[in-house]
């Protein structure tokens, strides 16, 4: 026998081990065979006994008393045999029938014996094959052919998979994929950018398309992708911040300017100034414009500005166009007609305290710090007004019957709640532009007239221009304001709103005292 490349002398150790295993099997088979043979012989003897048993009426026997003692006795009823069928079931039958039963059992025993014999024979032959000494005498030199694989890369196509543990969920990959529907090709957000500039340009295009082509729908995917990309950029690259020039400087905004990622915080910047800030590395006016258009409109205290309004913004300016909002100062007292001839009043002290707290902290975040509630009493304290030293619980604004006639004319409580939440949310951290856009749609449809308001208002104020981007809420003296059935953000003193309004009161302190038109409308109603 020739030796192939990679063939080596046969190693004897594993073969010897194999032979031992075979021999073990053979010996165990032999033992079993012996046992079954004994069983068979016992059955045969029994059969013989049963054959002759009915010949006599009784037999003299030694009756066993326990395992060791015996008593001479007689075996009577020689033809009645009780046969154990298994599982403690017995069958009473004659001797002849018992003989047939025994024959049946012998048949099974023979079958088992035959199988064991076959197995033993099989393993004997295998053991014989492993007897290399014997075979080498007959055949000659044996060589073990081995092929050593050196290159490990070709082995498998796929990754080596490990089975999951039972009753365990597979791990989700941490990869985040951003789909750009325009291109039709998926882009992975992590490290697959062709170039950042191209990506930003692409984003701008998408946003512009959203604004111009589909004004009714605000692409959440684009916004999300915007956000995600920005977050990633903050991680991957150094963000250069652009502090935009602002006519009205607000102290609290300074801190916000330093954070480029906090788009949400910008939106919540309700001290009166809203800046569309970008943390992009390239100076891209269009992008800023679109962003400011998108997000600036949402922060309006009363309305969500349509894209038409955003067109009014001077896009072509070299300076970054921004929309600035100023909100009214917190009125000292706001009466809310809750129906049933009851009015709720603001807790003036509470509001002032909150205002002071906000100013002192200098926190631009309009997110109201939730009161530290540890006990149920704390809850009551938060949701309760102090009137004349007594605690007056607040009624839910949703239960107000007069709301049908009031500015917030939307009778469905859900939508009103949504508006409230949304309004508060807008001034707080909010990432859900989709819902806002959806809700804003309904507002837009009904607030066509309202859009004119900001344009009307500035002329009445002495300081601002026709439309410089500053929206000021006027006193509710203009008649045009009242009859508008507007589903606006009801300026009801929800907790979030009140607190957020205090935040923005900083700048508005300078301006004359103004009440929101909605509040004013409501105030006028009982009169």
């Amino acid at each position, binding site marked *: 026998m020739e030796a192939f490349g990679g063939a080596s002398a046969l190693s004897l150790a594993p073969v010897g081990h194999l032979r031992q295993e075979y021999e073990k099997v053979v010996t165990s088979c032999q033992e*079993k065979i012996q046992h079954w*043979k*004994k069983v068979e012989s016992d059955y045969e003897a029994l059969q013989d*006994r049963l054959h002759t048993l009915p010949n006599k009426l009784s*037999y003299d026997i*030694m*009756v*066993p008393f326990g395992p060791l003692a015996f008593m001479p006795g007689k075996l009577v009823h020689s033809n009645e045999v009780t046969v154990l069928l298994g599982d403690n079931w017995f069958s009473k039958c004659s001797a002849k029938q018992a003989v047939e039963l025994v024959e049946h059992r012998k048949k099974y025993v023979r079958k088992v014996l035959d199988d064991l014999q076959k197995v033993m024979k099989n393993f004997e032959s295998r053991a014989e094959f492993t007897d290399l000494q014997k075979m080498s005498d007959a055949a000659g030199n044996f060589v073990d052919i081995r092929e050593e694989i050196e290159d490990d890369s070709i082995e498998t196509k796929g990754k080596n998979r490990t089975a999951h543990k039972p009753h365990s969920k597979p791990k989700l990959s941490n990869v985040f994929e951003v789909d750009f529907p325009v291109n039709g090709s998926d882009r992975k957000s992590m490290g697959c950018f062709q170039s950042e500039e191209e990506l930003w340009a692409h984003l701008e295009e998408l946003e512009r398309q959203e604004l111009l082509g589909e004004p009714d729908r605000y692409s959440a995917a684009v916004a999300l992708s915007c956000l995600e990309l920005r977050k990633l950029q903050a991680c991957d690259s150094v963000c250069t911040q652009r502090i935009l020039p602002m006519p009205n400087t607000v102290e609290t905004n300074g801190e916000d300017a330093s954070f480029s990622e906090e788009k949400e915080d910008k939106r919540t910047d309700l001290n009166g100034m809203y800046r569309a800030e970008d943390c992009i590395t390239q100076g891209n006016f269009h992008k800023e414009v679109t962003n400011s258009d998108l997000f600036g409109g949402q922060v309006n205290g009363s309305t969500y500005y349509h894209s038409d309004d955003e067109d009014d913004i001077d896009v072509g300016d070299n300076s970054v166009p921004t929309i600035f909002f100023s909100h009214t100062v917190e009125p000292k007292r706001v009466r809310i007609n809750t129906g049933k001839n009851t009015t709720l009043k603001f807790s003036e002290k509470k509001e002032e305290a909150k205002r002071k707290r906000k100013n002192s902290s200098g926190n631009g975040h309009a997110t109201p710090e939730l009161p530290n509630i540890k006990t149920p009493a704390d809850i009551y304290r938060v949701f309760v007004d102090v009137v004349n030293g007594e605690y007056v619980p607040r009624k839910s604004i949703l239960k107000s019957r007069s709301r049908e006639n009031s500015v917030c004319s939307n009778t469905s409580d859900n939508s009103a709640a949504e508006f409230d939440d949304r309004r508060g949310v807008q001034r707080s951290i909010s990432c859900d532009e989709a819902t806002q856009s959806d809700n804003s749609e309904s507002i837009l449809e009904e607030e066509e007239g309202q859009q004119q308001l900001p344009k009307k208002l500035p002329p009445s104020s002495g300081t601002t221009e026709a439309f410089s981007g500053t929206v000021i809420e006027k006193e509710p003296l203009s008649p045009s304001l009242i009859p508008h059935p507007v589903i606006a953000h009801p300026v009801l003193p929800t907790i979030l709103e009140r607190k957020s309004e205090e935040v923005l009161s900083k700048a508005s302190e300078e301006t004359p005292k103004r009440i929101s038109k909605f509040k004013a409308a409501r105030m006028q109603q009982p009169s």
Partner: protein
Amino acid sequence: MAFMTVLNCSLPFCHWKRKWEYLPPLPVQLNRVIKEQKVVVDELSNLKKNRKVYKQQPNSNIFFLVDRTETLSQCKNTLDELKKAHQEMENSEKTKIKK
């Protein structure tokens, strides 16, 4: 008074209560069995006439009364057979060794 002699059905198998017990190879077993048979034959032949002989039913504790002379002859026959088998085995081993 009849004393009884108990005859065990001695066969070259392990006790029925102990299963899968290792048994010595066949020639060794055969020698043991032959010895046992010899003892049985001697005992039976040396029994007094008034003794009863009981034979055990295999795999049970029941002893049936048997005729002494009959059992003696039976035991002698089995002994002869065993001796013959033993002889044959020895002969075959011898032939194997020779080969």
